[in-house]
Protein backbone atom coordinates (compact mmCIF):
# COMPACT_ATOMS: atom_id res chain seq x y z
CA UNK A 1 0.00 0.00 0.00
CA UNK A 2 2.84 2.34 0.91
CA UNK A 3 4.42 2.02 -2.56
CA UNK A 4 1.06 2.83 -4.10
CA UNK A 5 0.86 6.03 -2.04
CA UNK A 6 4.41 6.96 -2.95
CA UNK A 7 3.79 6.40 -6.62
CA UNK A 8 0.57 8.40 -6.43
CA UNK A 9 2.06 11.31 -4.48
CA UNK A 10 3.50 13.31 -7.44
CA UNK A 11 0.13 13.18 -9.16
CA UNK A 12 -1.65 14.20 -5.94
CA UNK A 13 0.55 17.03 -4.71
CA UNK A 14 -0.02 19.20 -7.75
CA UNK A 15 -0.44 22.94 -7.65
CA UNK A 16 -4.12 22.66 -8.54
CA UNK A 17 -4.94 20.10 -5.87
CA UNK A 18 -3.06 22.01 -3.20
CA UNK A 19 -4.81 25.29 -4.03
CA UNK A 20 -8.09 23.40 -3.90
CA UNK A 21 -7.28 21.98 -0.45
CA UNK A 22 -5.88 25.24 0.93
CA UNK A 23 -8.93 27.16 -0.23
CA UNK A 24 -11.11 24.61 1.53
CA UNK A 25 -8.94 24.93 4.61
CA UNK A 26 -9.35 28.70 4.47
CA UNK A 27 -13.10 28.23 4.38
CA UNK A 28 -12.96 25.97 7.40
CA UNK A 29 -10.86 28.53 9.28
CA UNK A 30 -13.08 31.41 8.24
CA UNK A 31 -16.27 29.63 9.26
CA UNK A 32 -14.80 28.80 12.64
CA UNK A 33 -13.18 32.16 13.35
CA UNK A 34 -16.09 34.31 12.26
CA UNK A 35 -18.71 31.94 13.65
CA UNK A 36 -17.12 31.59 17.05
CA UNK A 37 -16.10 35.27 17.30
CA UNK A 38 -19.62 36.41 16.49
CA UNK A 39 -20.88 33.72 18.83
CA UNK A 40 -18.64 35.12 21.53
CA UNK A 41 -20.07 38.61 21.13
CA UNK A 42 -23.62 37.23 21.03
CA UNK A 43 -22.77 35.09 24.03
CA UNK A 44 -21.89 38.23 26.01
CA UNK A 45 -25.21 39.74 25.04
CA UNK A 46 -27.07 36.57 25.99
CA UNK A 47 -25.35 36.49 29.36
CA UNK A 48 -26.15 40.16 29.86
CA UNK A 49 -29.78 39.44 28.99
CA UNK A 50 -29.86 36.58 31.48
CA UNK A 51 -28.58 38.88 34.22
CA UNK A 52 -31.11 41.66 33.79
CA UNK A 53 -32.82 42.39 37.11
CA UNK A 54 -36.45 42.83 37.99
CA UNK A 55 -39.78 41.69 36.67
CA UNK A 56 -39.83 44.01 33.65
CA UNK A 57 -36.96 42.12 32.03
CA UNK A 58 -38.38 38.68 32.75
CA UNK A 59 -39.41 37.94 29.12
CA UNK A 60 -35.92 38.81 27.88
CA UNK A 61 -34.37 36.70 30.64
CA UNK A 62 -36.59 33.74 29.80
CA UNK A 63 -35.96 34.05 26.08
CA UNK A 64 -32.19 34.15 26.56
CA UNK A 65 -32.26 31.20 28.94
CA UNK A 66 -34.48 29.17 26.62
CA UNK A 67 -32.19 29.95 23.70
CA UNK A 68 -29.03 28.90 25.54
CA UNK A 69 -30.51 25.79 27.08
CA UNK A 70 -32.02 24.66 23.78
CA UNK A 71 -29.18 25.22 21.37
CA UNK A 72 -26.55 23.74 23.65
CA UNK A 73 -28.45 20.48 23.46
CA UNK A 74 -29.01 20.11 19.74
CA UNK A 75 -26.41 18.40 17.53
CA UNK A 76 -24.65 20.74 15.12
CA UNK A 77 -25.81 18.74 12.10
CA UNK A 78 -29.45 19.18 13.13
CA UNK A 79 -28.97 22.94 13.53
CA UNK A 80 -27.38 23.04 10.09
CA UNK A 81 -30.46 21.46 8.53
CA UNK A 82 -32.87 23.59 10.56
CA UNK A 83 -31.09 26.77 9.45
CA UNK A 84 -30.94 25.53 5.85
CA UNK A 85 -34.63 24.66 5.65
CA UNK A 86 -35.72 27.74 7.58
CA UNK A 87 -33.84 29.93 5.14
CA UNK A 88 -35.24 28.06 2.17
CA UNK A 89 -38.72 28.20 3.71
CA UNK A 90 -38.54 31.99 3.97
CA UNK A 91 -37.07 32.08 0.44
CA UNK A 92 -34.04 34.09 1.52
CA UNK A 93 -31.12 33.75 -0.77
CA UNK A 94 -28.15 32.80 1.35
CA UNK A 95 -25.14 30.82 0.15
CA UNK A 96 -24.43 27.44 1.69
CA UNK A 97 -21.39 28.99 3.32
CA UNK A 98 -23.70 31.59 4.84
CA UNK A 99 -26.03 28.90 6.10
CA UNK A 100 -23.16 27.08 7.79
CA UNK A 101 -21.98 30.35 9.28
CA UNK A 102 -25.39 31.16 10.77
CA UNK A 103 -25.64 27.65 12.19
CA UNK A 104 -22.21 28.02 13.79
CA UNK A 105 -23.23 31.37 15.30
CA UNK A 106 -26.37 29.83 16.75
CA UNK A 107 -24.49 27.03 18.45
CA UNK A 108 -21.41 28.96 19.48
CA UNK A 109 -23.40 31.83 20.98
CA UNK A 110 -25.24 29.37 23.20
CA UNK A 111 -22.01 27.67 24.28
CA UNK A 112 -20.11 30.94 24.72
CA UNK A 113 -22.95 32.31 26.84
CA UNK A 114 -22.36 29.41 29.22
CA UNK A 115 -18.58 29.87 29.19
CA UNK A 116 -18.98 33.59 29.87
CA UNK A 117 -21.54 32.92 32.59
CA UNK A 118 -19.06 30.66 34.36
CA UNK A 119 -16.39 33.35 34.00
CA UNK A 120 -18.53 36.07 35.53
CA UNK A 121 -19.88 33.77 38.22
CA UNK A 122 -16.32 33.08 39.30
CA UNK A 123 -16.02 36.73 40.30
CA UNK A 124 -17.52 37.19 43.71
CA UNK A 125 -20.27 39.76 44.26
CA UNK A 126 -18.03 41.47 46.81
CA UNK A 127 -15.75 42.65 43.99
CA UNK A 128 -18.75 44.42 42.42
CA UNK A 129 -19.78 45.83 45.82
CA UNK A 130 -16.29 47.04 46.61
CA UNK A 131 -16.02 48.79 43.26
CA UNK A 132 -19.51 50.27 43.68
CA UNK A 133 -18.72 51.90 47.00
CA UNK A 134 -15.61 53.39 45.38
CA UNK A 135 -17.96 54.96 42.82
CA UNK A 136 -17.07 52.70 39.91
CA UNK A 137 -19.90 52.51 37.37
CA UNK A 138 -21.03 49.07 36.21
CA UNK A 139 -19.10 49.29 32.95
CA UNK A 140 -16.01 50.60 34.72
CA UNK A 141 -16.21 47.69 37.16
CA UNK A 142 -16.59 45.30 34.27
CA UNK A 143 -13.61 46.75 32.43
CA UNK A 144 -11.15 47.31 35.27
CA UNK A 145 -12.10 44.67 37.81
CA UNK A 146 -14.33 41.88 36.56
CA UNK A 147 -13.19 41.12 33.01
CA UNK A 148 -9.47 41.03 33.80
CA UNK A 149 -10.24 38.37 36.39
CA UNK A 150 -12.88 36.53 34.36
CA UNK A 151 -10.58 36.02 31.35
CA UNK A 152 -8.71 33.42 33.33
CA UNK A 153 -11.86 31.34 33.54
CA UNK A 154 -13.30 32.24 30.13
CA UNK A 155 -10.32 31.84 27.81
CA UNK A 156 -9.30 28.18 28.23
CA UNK A 157 -12.75 26.69 27.54
CA UNK A 158 -13.42 29.31 24.85
CA UNK A 159 -10.36 28.24 22.91
CA UNK A 160 -11.00 24.56 23.58
CA UNK A 161 -14.47 25.14 22.15
CA UNK A 162 -13.09 26.91 19.08
CA UNK A 163 -10.56 24.15 18.39
CA UNK A 164 -13.29 21.58 18.84
CA UNK A 165 -15.45 23.53 16.44
CA UNK A 166 -12.82 23.49 13.72
CA UNK A 167 -13.49 19.76 13.65
CA UNK A 168 -17.25 20.12 13.85
CA UNK A 169 -17.35 22.35 10.79
CA UNK A 170 -16.65 19.16 8.85
CA UNK A 171 -20.36 18.51 9.22
CA UNK A 172 -21.01 21.47 6.92
CA UNK A 173 -19.76 19.19 4.15
CA UNK A 174 -23.14 17.48 4.49
CA UNK A 175 -24.72 20.60 3.02
CA UNK A 176 -22.15 20.77 0.26
CA UNK A 177 -20.00 23.56 1.66
CA UNK A 178 -16.56 23.01 0.18
CA UNK A 179 -14.59 22.97 3.40
CA UNK A 180 -11.67 20.75 4.24
CA UNK A 181 -13.49 17.45 4.68
CA UNK A 182 -15.65 18.01 1.59
CA UNK A 183 -12.52 18.80 -0.44
CA UNK A 184 -11.04 15.52 0.77
CA UNK A 185 -14.12 13.65 -0.41
CA UNK A 186 -13.94 15.34 -3.80
CA UNK A 187 -10.30 14.41 -4.28
CA UNK A 188 -10.89 10.91 -3.08
CA UNK A 189 -13.72 10.39 -5.58
CA UNK A 190 -11.33 11.60 -8.29
CA UNK A 191 -9.45 8.40 -7.68
CA UNK A 192 -6.72 9.35 -5.26
CA UNK A 193 -6.28 6.86 -2.48
CA UNK A 194 -8.29 7.75 0.62
CA UNK A 195 -5.30 7.27 2.91
CA UNK A 196 -3.25 9.82 1.00
CA UNK A 197 -6.08 12.33 0.72
CA UNK A 198 -7.43 12.13 4.23
CA UNK A 199 -3.91 11.82 5.65
CA UNK A 200 -3.22 15.21 4.08
CA UNK A 201 -6.54 16.55 5.36
CA UNK A 202 -5.60 15.35 8.83
CA UNK A 203 -2.33 17.25 8.70
CA UNK A 204 -4.14 20.39 7.54
CA UNK A 205 -6.64 20.17 10.41
CA UNK A 206 -3.70 19.96 12.78
CA UNK A 207 -2.04 22.93 11.09
CA UNK A 208 -5.26 24.87 11.69
CA UNK A 209 -5.95 23.94 15.26
CA UNK A 210 -2.49 23.84 16.79
CA UNK A 211 -1.69 27.54 16.28
CA UNK A 212 -5.15 28.37 17.65
CA UNK A 213 -4.39 26.46 20.83
CA UNK A 214 -1.08 28.29 21.06
CA UNK A 215 -2.81 31.62 20.49
CA UNK A 216 -5.18 30.74 23.31
CA UNK A 217 -2.27 29.96 25.62
CA UNK A 218 -0.58 33.22 24.68
CA UNK A 219 -3.73 35.28 25.26
CA UNK A 220 -4.23 33.57 28.59
CA UNK A 221 -0.72 34.49 29.72
CA UNK A 222 -1.19 38.05 28.48
CA UNK A 223 -4.68 38.77 29.77
CA UNK A 224 -4.69 36.62 32.86
CA UNK A 225 -1.16 36.14 34.11
CA UNK A 226 -1.04 33.46 36.74
CA UNK A 227 0.97 34.23 39.82
CA UNK A 228 1.86 31.35 42.00
CA UNK A 229 2.80 32.13 45.53
Amino acid at each position, binding site marked *: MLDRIISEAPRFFTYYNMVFLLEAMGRTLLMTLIGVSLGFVLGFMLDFARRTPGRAWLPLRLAATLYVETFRRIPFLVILFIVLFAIQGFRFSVSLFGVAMIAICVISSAFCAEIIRAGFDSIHQ*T*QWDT*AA*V*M*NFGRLQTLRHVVLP*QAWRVILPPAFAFMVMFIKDTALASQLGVVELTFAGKVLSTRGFSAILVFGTVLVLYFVLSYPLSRLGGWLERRLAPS*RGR
Partner: protein
Amino acid sequence: MPHLAVADLTATYPGTDKPVLENVSLEVAKGEIVSLIGPSGSGKSTLLRVLVGLLPPTSGSVRIDGEAIDYTSRRSLKSARDRLAIVFQQYNLFQNMTALGNVTIAPIRIKGWRRPEVEADAARLLAKVGLADKHASYPDQLSGGQQQRVAIARALALKPEILLLDEVTSALDPELVGEVLDTIRVLAADGMTMLIVSHEMGFVREVSSRVVMMDQGSIVETGPPAQVFDAPVTARAREFVSRILRH
Protein backbone atom coordinates in the same frame (compact mmCIF):
# COMPACT_ATOMS: atom_id res chain seq x y z
CA MET B 1 -23.27 69.52 64.22
CA PRO B 2 -22.41 65.81 64.14
CA HIS B 3 -20.20 64.65 61.30
CA LEU B 4 -22.40 61.64 60.68
CA ALA B 5 -25.98 61.52 61.89
CA VAL B 6 -28.20 58.48 61.52
CA ALA B 7 -31.82 58.86 62.51
CA ASP B 8 -34.52 56.17 62.79
CA LEU B 9 -32.83 54.05 60.14
CA THR B 10 -34.74 50.93 59.17
CA ALA B 11 -33.71 48.42 56.52
CA THR B 12 -35.02 45.11 55.28
CA TYR B 13 -33.30 42.58 53.04
CA PRO B 14 -35.17 42.12 49.76
CA GLY B 15 -37.65 39.27 49.93
CA THR B 16 -37.90 39.25 53.72
CA ASP B 17 -40.37 40.90 56.07
CA LYS B 18 -38.42 41.30 59.26
CA PRO B 19 -36.21 44.39 59.28
CA VAL B 20 -32.50 43.78 59.87
CA LEU B 21 -32.20 47.31 61.20
CA GLU B 22 -34.96 48.92 63.20
CA ASN B 23 -35.07 52.63 64.09
CA VAL B 24 -31.34 52.93 64.54
CA SER B 25 -30.19 56.40 65.54
CA LEU B 26 -26.65 57.45 66.31
CA GLU B 27 -24.32 60.38 65.87
CA VAL B 28 -20.61 60.53 65.31
CA ALA B 29 -18.80 63.82 65.90
CA LYS B 30 -15.85 64.94 63.80
CA GLY B 31 -12.72 63.03 64.79
CA GLU B 32 -14.70 60.73 67.04
CA ILE B 33 -14.34 56.97 67.01
CA VAL B 34 -17.53 55.09 67.64
CA SER B 35 -17.50 51.31 67.92
CA LEU B 36 -20.41 49.05 67.21
CA ILE B 37 -20.49 45.87 69.25
CA GLY B 38 -23.05 43.14 69.75
CA PRO B 39 -23.69 39.51 68.93
CA SER B 40 -23.46 38.15 65.39
CA GLY B 41 -26.50 39.02 63.34
CA SER B 42 -27.31 42.05 65.43
CA GLY B 43 -27.12 44.35 62.40
CA LYS B 44 -23.73 46.03 62.95
CA SER B 45 -22.31 45.18 59.54
CA THR B 46 -25.68 45.74 57.92
CA LEU B 47 -25.68 49.26 59.28
CA LEU B 48 -22.37 49.95 57.52
CA ARG B 49 -23.68 48.39 54.30
CA VAL B 50 -26.72 50.64 54.45
CA LEU B 51 -24.56 53.72 55.06
CA VAL B 52 -22.55 53.11 51.85
CA GLY B 53 -25.67 52.29 49.85
CA LEU B 54 -25.20 48.55 49.35
CA LEU B 55 -28.58 47.95 51.00
CA PRO B 56 -31.17 50.68 50.56
CA PRO B 57 -32.88 51.83 53.76
CA THR B 58 -36.65 51.53 53.93
CA SER B 59 -37.00 54.57 56.17
CA GLY B 60 -35.01 56.98 58.27
CA SER B 61 -32.25 59.37 57.36
CA VAL B 62 -28.49 59.58 57.12
CA ARG B 63 -26.77 62.96 57.15
CA ILE B 64 -23.16 63.89 56.61
CA ASP B 65 -22.40 67.37 57.94
CA GLY B 66 -26.14 67.96 58.01
CA GLU B 67 -26.61 67.03 54.37
CA ALA B 68 -29.11 64.20 53.92
CA ILE B 69 -28.20 61.30 51.62
CA ASP B 70 -30.90 60.30 49.18
CA TYR B 71 -30.17 56.63 48.51
CA THR B 72 -32.55 56.55 45.57
CA SER B 73 -30.60 59.23 43.75
CA ARG B 74 -27.47 58.22 41.90
CA ARG B 75 -25.93 61.66 42.32
CA SER B 76 -26.57 61.87 46.02
CA LEU B 77 -25.25 58.35 46.56
CA LYS B 78 -22.16 59.13 44.53
CA SER B 79 -21.38 62.22 46.57
CA ALA B 80 -21.96 60.26 49.79
CA ARG B 81 -19.56 57.58 48.59
CA ASP B 82 -17.00 60.31 47.92
CA ARG B 83 -17.10 61.19 51.59
CA LEU B 84 -17.45 57.73 53.14
CA ALA B 85 -15.07 54.83 52.72
CA ILE B 86 -15.55 51.30 53.93
CA VAL B 87 -13.08 48.52 54.62
CA PHE B 88 -14.54 45.03 54.55
CA GLN B 89 -13.96 42.03 56.73
CA GLN B 90 -12.71 40.00 53.76
CA TYR B 91 -10.51 42.89 52.43
CA ASN B 92 -11.99 42.45 48.92
CA LEU B 93 -8.85 43.59 47.14
CA PHE B 94 -9.05 43.52 43.36
CA GLN B 95 -7.24 40.28 42.63
CA ASN B 96 -6.02 41.39 39.22
CA MET B 97 -4.04 44.35 40.54
CA THR B 98 -0.91 44.85 42.60
CA ALA B 99 -1.07 46.51 46.00
CA LEU B 100 -0.18 49.80 44.33
CA GLY B 101 -2.76 49.18 41.59
CA ASN B 102 -5.45 48.56 44.19
CA VAL B 103 -4.65 51.82 45.94
CA THR B 104 -4.36 53.95 42.80
CA ILE B 105 -7.07 52.60 40.47
CA ALA B 106 -10.02 54.57 41.82
CA PRO B 107 -8.20 57.89 42.32
CA ILE B 108 -6.85 57.70 38.75
CA ARG B 109 -9.73 56.09 36.85
CA ILE B 110 -12.74 57.26 38.82
CA LYS B 111 -11.66 60.55 40.34
CA GLY B 112 -9.46 61.48 37.41
CA TRP B 113 -6.64 62.69 39.65
CA ARG B 114 -3.16 62.98 38.16
CA ARG B 115 -1.15 59.79 38.23
CA PRO B 116 2.18 61.15 39.61
CA GLU B 117 0.47 62.72 42.61
CA VAL B 118 -1.77 59.71 43.18
CA GLU B 119 1.19 57.35 43.09
CA ALA B 120 3.20 59.50 45.46
CA ASP B 121 0.24 59.60 47.81
CA ALA B 122 -0.26 55.84 47.50
CA ALA B 123 3.40 55.25 48.32
CA ARG B 124 3.00 57.42 51.40
CA LEU B 125 -0.14 55.51 52.47
CA LEU B 126 1.42 52.10 51.89
CA ALA B 127 4.39 53.20 53.98
CA LYS B 128 1.99 54.39 56.66
CA VAL B 129 0.39 50.94 56.88
CA GLY B 130 3.84 49.35 56.91
CA LEU B 131 3.89 47.99 53.36
CA ALA B 132 6.43 50.23 51.68
CA ASP B 133 8.16 47.20 50.17
CA LYS B 134 4.99 45.51 48.83
CA HIS B 135 3.95 47.85 46.02
CA ALA B 136 4.33 45.22 43.32
CA SER B 137 2.79 42.31 45.23
CA TYR B 138 -0.51 40.84 44.13
CA PRO B 139 -3.16 40.06 46.76
CA ASP B 140 -2.49 36.33 46.56
CA GLN B 141 1.14 37.01 47.43
CA LEU B 142 0.21 38.86 50.62
CA SER B 143 -0.86 37.57 54.01
CA GLY B 144 -4.35 38.37 55.29
CA GLY B 145 -3.03 41.10 57.55
CA GLN B 146 -1.07 42.67 54.71
CA GLN B 147 -4.10 42.50 52.40
CA GLN B 148 -6.24 44.17 55.03
CA ARG B 149 -3.70 46.96 55.40
CA VAL B 150 -3.66 47.46 51.62
CA ALA B 151 -7.46 47.67 51.80
CA ILE B 152 -7.16 50.39 54.45
CA ALA B 153 -4.63 52.28 52.33
CA ARG B 154 -6.96 51.92 49.34
CA ALA B 155 -9.85 53.41 51.30
CA LEU B 156 -7.69 56.30 52.50
CA ALA B 157 -6.38 57.05 49.00
CA LEU B 158 -9.83 58.40 48.14
CA LYS B 159 -9.44 60.94 50.93
CA PRO B 160 -12.68 60.08 52.74
CA GLU B 161 -13.99 62.15 55.62
CA ILE B 162 -15.41 59.17 57.44
CA LEU B 163 -13.97 55.68 57.55
CA LEU B 164 -16.17 52.65 58.18
CA LEU B 165 -14.36 49.51 59.31
CA ASP B 166 -16.35 46.29 59.16
CA GLU B 167 -14.79 43.65 61.41
CA VAL B 168 -11.47 44.27 59.75
CA THR B 169 -9.60 41.87 62.00
CA SER B 170 -12.03 38.98 62.35
CA ALA B 171 -10.81 37.12 59.24
CA LEU B 172 -7.20 37.31 60.39
CA ASP B 173 -4.96 34.93 62.26
CA PRO B 174 -4.46 36.12 65.84
CA GLU B 175 -0.83 37.07 65.24
CA LEU B 176 -1.83 39.33 62.34
CA VAL B 177 -4.53 41.20 64.24
CA GLY B 178 -2.02 43.42 66.04
CA GLU B 179 -0.55 44.91 62.87
CA VAL B 180 -3.96 45.97 61.58
CA LEU B 181 -5.00 47.41 64.94
CA ASP B 182 -1.75 49.39 65.00
CA THR B 183 -2.70 50.87 61.65
CA ILE B 184 -6.09 51.92 62.98
CA ARG B 185 -4.44 53.47 66.05
CA VAL B 186 -2.34 55.62 63.72
CA LEU B 187 -5.49 56.78 61.93
CA ALA B 188 -7.17 57.50 65.26
CA ALA B 189 -4.23 59.66 66.27
CA ASP B 190 -4.64 61.56 62.98
CA GLY B 191 -8.19 62.51 63.96
CA MET B 192 -10.05 60.48 61.32
CA THR B 193 -13.77 60.08 62.02
CA MET B 194 -14.41 56.35 62.28
CA LEU B 195 -17.29 54.00 62.80
CA ILE B 196 -15.90 50.61 63.68
CA VAL B 197 -17.54 47.21 63.91
CA SER B 198 -15.30 45.00 65.99
CA HIS B 199 -15.12 41.94 68.16
CA GLU B 200 -11.78 43.00 69.62
CA MET B 201 -13.16 44.22 72.92
CA GLY B 202 -9.82 45.30 74.38
CA PHE B 203 -9.17 47.39 71.30
CA VAL B 204 -12.67 48.84 71.28
CA ARG B 205 -12.25 49.89 74.87
CA GLU B 206 -8.90 51.49 74.14
CA VAL B 207 -9.66 53.54 71.02
CA SER B 208 -13.38 54.32 71.14
CA SER B 209 -14.78 57.53 72.42
CA ARG B 210 -18.18 55.88 72.47
CA VAL B 211 -19.46 52.34 72.22
CA VAL B 212 -22.80 51.44 70.69
CA MET B 213 -24.21 48.02 71.47
CA MET B 214 -26.69 46.49 69.05
CA ASP B 215 -28.94 43.50 69.31
CA GLN B 216 -31.50 42.18 66.84
CA GLY B 217 -31.27 45.22 64.62
CA SER B 218 -31.65 47.83 67.35
CA ILE B 219 -29.35 49.81 69.58
CA VAL B 220 -29.61 48.58 73.15
CA GLU B 221 -27.01 50.73 74.83
CA THR B 222 -24.76 53.69 74.03
CA GLY B 223 -22.10 55.26 76.16
CA PRO B 224 -18.42 55.68 76.88
CA PRO B 225 -16.54 52.36 76.92
CA ALA B 226 -16.19 52.40 80.69
CA GLN B 227 -19.94 52.60 81.12
CA VAL B 228 -20.89 50.02 78.49
CA PHE B 229 -18.33 47.47 79.64
CA ASP B 230 -18.24 48.04 83.38
CA ALA B 231 -21.66 49.32 84.28
CA PRO B 232 -24.14 48.59 81.51
CA VAL B 233 -27.56 50.05 82.10
CA THR B 234 -29.84 47.68 80.21
CA ALA B 235 -30.34 44.02 81.04
CA ARG B 236 -29.54 42.95 77.46
CA ALA B 237 -26.22 44.82 77.54
CA ARG B 238 -25.33 43.32 80.93
CA GLU B 239 -25.98 39.84 79.58
CA PHE B 240 -23.84 40.43 76.46
CA VAL B 241 -20.98 42.00 78.41
CA SER B 242 -20.93 39.24 80.98
CA ARG B 243 -20.82 36.69 78.18
CA ILE B 244 -17.91 38.31 76.33
CA LEU B 245 -15.96 39.10 79.47
CA ARG B 246 -16.10 35.49 80.57
CA HIS B 247 -13.91 34.52 77.59
